[in-house]
């Protein structure tokens, strides 16, 4: 026993989370929940009132009965549109033009008077379930498109809930580094699983152990035969993600642009809010540009990569094969790069950042010959004096094959295929 020290530091696994950090976590969760709930509840209510309700009324009104009616003169201070209709000798007064809840879908004042002059005979549609409920126009009007406006708010709330869900699940799994089941097991001293012969305690009878390393023998068994590698994110996924963000961002910014624009149209425009909005508008335009870029990239040829083994040990080799789905003639140069990257995620205040650092980078393939680009193979060798793949909640060692295809005047082919490098054989 060479190492002896009577002044050892305390265990991290016993005190990894302070009361203050727990309190801060609870506060952030409550804040996030409240923020998401406001967007979700307000967005849902607005979507129902402005969108779903009018649209459903349009559908239901298709069976309402067509009834003759007469346009009446508007009363001072009352609705702009009034009409009367008679059902079974009883007179009813209607004031609704359509199901558009925003402004009733009414035409402009002059058009209204031209289309519905006082005393004109026309038809209205009456709800058989409520004879006092009638409209002149039972179809769709352009104003009902405002029903789409609350969707971005609803999505912000939903995304907030999803982020909270994963944040809580993540926190539970890492917690103090000791899963609840493991904590209970160890504190009770009960057996929770098979008694592994690899763990023994002398001077101790009936040793109970839990193995949870992710690097036990059973974790390192490789499947036989080649495997097709899965791309980290496809151009279509990037396009959809960017498009959703662009819709949310530009919808919210668009409201303010509309309000500011209306002020200028009425001759009441102010410079400060106008200038203040410029960076937000530029970001919105940038995101739209990115969405267009990723959309064009969806038409690129797609690399399909297969490897002779799923797990490659350090200092080990594997055969790599590739082919492209789609026309590769536009690719001027193809590079396949083996990369090892450190990835560290950290929080500063309320923001989360992720830093990466490449510790290994080597060309596996680099060619300009179209016949070599379309289909090919190479031997992949992992260096022995480096680190295998490692994945924890905040810190990772990632190995990947990066495919880079240069296409002039068009978005390049760029695909990342994660691979798993394991400890030495």
């Amino acid at each position, binding site marked *: 026993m060479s*190492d002896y020290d009577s002044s050892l*530091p305390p*265990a991290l696994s016993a005190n990894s989370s302070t009361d203050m950090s727990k309190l801060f976590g609870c506060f952030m969760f409550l804040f996030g929940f409240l923020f998401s709930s406001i967007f979700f509840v307000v967005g849902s209510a607005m979507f129902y009132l402005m969108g779903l309700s009018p649209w459903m009324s349009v559908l239901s009104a298709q069976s309402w009965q067509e009834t003759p009616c007469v346009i009446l003169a508007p009363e001072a201070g009352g609705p702009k549109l009034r009409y009367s209709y008679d059902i079974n000798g009883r007179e009813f007064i209607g004031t609704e033009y359509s199901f558009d809840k925003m402004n009733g879908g009414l035409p402009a004042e002059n058009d209204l008077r031209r289309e519905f002059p006082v005393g004109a005979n026309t038809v209205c549609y009456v709800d058989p379930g409520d004879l006092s409920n009638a409209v002149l126009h039972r179809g769709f009007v352009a104003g009902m498109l405002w029903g789409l406006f609350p969707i971005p708010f609803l999505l912000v709330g939903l995304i907030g809930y999803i982020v909270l869900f994963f944040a809580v699940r993540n926190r539970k799994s890492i917690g103090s580094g000791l899963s609840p089941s493991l904590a209970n*097991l160890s504190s009770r001293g009960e057996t929770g699983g098979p008694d592994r012969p690899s763990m023994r305690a002398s001077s101790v009878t009936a040793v109970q*152990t839990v*193995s949870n390393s992710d690097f036990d023998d059973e974790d390192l068994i490789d499947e036989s035969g080649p495997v097709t590698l899965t791309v980290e994110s496809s151009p279509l996924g990037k396009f959809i993600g960017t498009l959703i963000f662009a819709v949310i961002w530009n919808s919210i910014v668009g409201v303010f642009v509309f309000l500011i624009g209306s002020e200028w149209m009425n001759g009441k425009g102010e410079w400060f809010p106008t200038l203040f909005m410029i960076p937000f508008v530029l970001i919105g335009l940038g995101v739209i540009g990115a969405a267009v870029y990723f959309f064009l990239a969806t038409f690129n040829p797609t690399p399909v990569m297969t490897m002779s083994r799923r797990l490659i040990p350090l200092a080990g080799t594997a055969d790599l094969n590739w082919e492209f789905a789609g026309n590769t003639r536009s690719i001027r140069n193809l590079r396949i790069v083996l990369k090892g990257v450190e990835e560290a995620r950290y929080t500063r205040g309320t923001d989360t950042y992720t830093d990466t650092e490449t510790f290994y980078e080597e060309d596996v393939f680099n060619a300009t010959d179209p016949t070599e680009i379309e289909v090919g193979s190479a031997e992949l060798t992992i260096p022995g004096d480096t*680190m295998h793949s490692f994945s924890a*909640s905040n810190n990772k*060692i990632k190995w990947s094959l990066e495919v880079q295809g240069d296409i002039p005047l068009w978005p390049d082919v760029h695909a990342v295929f994660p691979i798993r490098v394991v400890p030495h054989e």
Partner: protein
Amino acid sequence: MSQLQIETDYSAYYPGGELRASVSWQLAEIPDSAELRLVWNTSGKGDRDLKVVHVVPLPDPQAKDERNVELTLPWGPYSFSGKLISLIWALELVLQPGNVSARREITIGPEAREVILINKAETI
């Protein structure tokens, strides 16, 4: 005053190797429970990750006690240090109540050494 000690036969080990440890403690009162944990944790730029890989309960602990433990280490992850992340293995002795504890760091890696991540392309 509490005294906790963890002794190991070596300070660095091969992955999958055998580790022998001797743990001892002296407390004012008899603890409710005692256990030795094999853990790894990260340090560096990222928020800390910590994982308890093995737990060896030490039954019927006395106020003054000593136990010997042998265990087979896992094949990974290796102890390593890069520009952003370091991974450190340790044995941790934890006594209850009060989370009375001690920690001894060890190295697990090929050739019983920590892996140092250097981008050779940058150093040339």
